């Protein structure tokens, strides 16, 4: 190492350190506009409609075809019940021929892959926007979607709030997007007709949207209280 290189190295390292420190200082001084985290239980981030959280079951639609539990790669869905007296179902959608006594999802096993949504003929099971339930025991993670309350009474208030909050966030996002669009349109108008509107056309491909958050039949928990399981034998 030559004498000159020795000092160049010291200078180079010091300079790079100074650059790095100026970056962090910049962030420190302007942290108000940089902060990206949210204070979780009090603020929430937007949960998009396609979010795959815990299951929703529309009990009255279910025809007990076992398709969801068949497709489940980890076999976490257990269904019990009867399929009605008058033989096999011809039309599953309006059949209402099934009486469920048990529809259990074991959340210690479930991997939230969403495969159970697709084969369901009446589309009565889907993965909803909720994800934050807790348990103090392994066995409590096994939820009977017919009877078990996913949340305690206390938590339900929170869940309800979270739903409202999410709707607010969606609305705000939409508003912002609309504003942006308006602004962009304005800018385009200002730019004049010089630019061709060539790439405006975007595909209107088939959509498989759930259309916002699933509306719940009852407040909180899972919309399944009605069909409380009394098995007909």
């Amino acid at each position, binding site marked *: 190492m030559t004498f000159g290189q020795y000092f160049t190295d010291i200078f180079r390292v010091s300079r790079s350190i100074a650059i*790095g420190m100026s970056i962090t200082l910049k962030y*420190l001084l302007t942290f108000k506009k940089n902060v990206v985290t949210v204070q979780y239980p009090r603020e929430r981030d937007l949960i998009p409609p396609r979010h795959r959280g815990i299951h929703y079951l529309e009990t009255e639609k279910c025809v007990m075809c076992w398709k969801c539990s068949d497709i489940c790669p980890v076999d976490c869905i257990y269904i019990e019940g009867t399929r009605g007296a008058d033989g096999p179902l011809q039309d599953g959608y309006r059949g209402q021929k099934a009486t469920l006594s048990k529809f259990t999802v074991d959340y210690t096993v479930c991997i939230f892959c969403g495969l159970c949504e697709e084969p369901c003929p009446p589309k009565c099971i889907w993965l909803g926007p909720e994800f934050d339930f807790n348990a103090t025991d392994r066995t409590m993670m096994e939820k009977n979607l017919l009877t078990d309350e996913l949340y305690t009474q206390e938590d339900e208030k929170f869940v309800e709030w979270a739903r409202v909050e999410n709707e607010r966030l969606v609305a705000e996002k939409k508003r912002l997007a609309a504003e942006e669009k308006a602004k962009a349109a304005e800018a385009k108008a200002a730019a004049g007709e010089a630019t061709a509107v060539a790439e405006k056309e975007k595909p209107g491909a088939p959509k498989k949207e759930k259309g916002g958050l699933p509306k719940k039949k009852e407040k909180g928990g899972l919309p399944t209280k009605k069909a409380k399981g009394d098995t007909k034998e």
Partner: protein
Amino acid sequence: MSGLLLAQTPPTVGELANQWNTNPHQGGLYLESALYQLVDAMGSSLTLPPWLVVAATLLVVCLLVFGFINVFGLFVVWLERKASAHIQCRYGPMEVGPHGVLQTIADGIKLTSKEDIVPRLADRPLFVLAPIIVFAGVLVRFVPLPFGQELVASDMDLGLFFVAAVGSVEVIGVILAGWSSNNKWSLFATMRTATQMVSYEIPLGLAFVSVIVCAGTFSLQEIIAQQEGWFWNWFILKNPFLLLMAPIYLVASLAECKRAPFDLPEAESELVSGFHTEYSGMRFAIFFLAEYAAMYLVSAIAVVLFFGGWWTGIPLIDGIGMGADASAGAAVTGFVIKAAVMVSKAVFLVFVQIWVRWTLPRVRLDQMMFICWKVLTPIALVCLVGATLWHLASGGGGLFGIPALLGLDG
């Protein structure tokens, strides 16, 4: 000292203090001597043996310093978490108290209530002793450290020397901690600590010496007193070589208190948590506190040596309460201002340490040694010689002595 305590006719406490404390600046607000005077004033009615009074006085002083360390530790841990959070686009602690200021207290309570685990194969006595030694090593260095004008536990003639000398005690504690944990990773950290802290005392000592040469005294009070006046009278601006020496001191002090980028002894991605891997609960808290106390210590010494101690650098403000004819209110105001200036300067340097930590990656062991022995030490040696010669040539005037040289110095 033993002769003193066994003296036939017990001396009054004031005499004792005078005999013991040979400082020429008697009569100020030095904590130790102030307490002696206090005791002395009411002493005639007390019939306590003098050694007890001395011991009690020392204990009170010690507790005051200890309290300061605790409060400071609570504050700086919060500052570090907040600063790092804001650097990293986060909020940091927000829940306990406004902006989470009480978070550290909550954490402290949590730590004290945690189980105190000693590994089965650990060397129990040494394991228990280690955090105490580490903390004592830091605490004892606070003795000559001024917190404000005449606000010092004990003003020693050889204050700076004392700081450098007892600094090594901390190393012993860290080595004990790593060794007694009976953990190979802790042992790694121990060896790293030993090499690092012993090595970095050289540039640190050279920085001390260069200031001592310019100031002509070891006493921290006296060193600060010499930097009175405009801010160009600060040592960093008195002498261009000291201007170079200040960054050397700051880098070496980073290494001395094991802060990033020299946090090899605790390198959490390499050694899990270094020498305090096996510690939990209160013992861990003591290590933690010692680290932050050491951060304040090196920063405060940097302030004393290079950045004008308690002087604001503007004579108008510094003059408040100075002089014999100052009113009591002005004196108190001046005293408070000086203490505040001293502490806030040190806290700013602590903040710089935090800022550096959250920016830079860690160096490797050989690079750490390279920086010490091949970069800092030679440059510090050159600076020492240069500073001495400059001091002799310029006579120690402010702003590198240039105004004095040009005859502008009043």
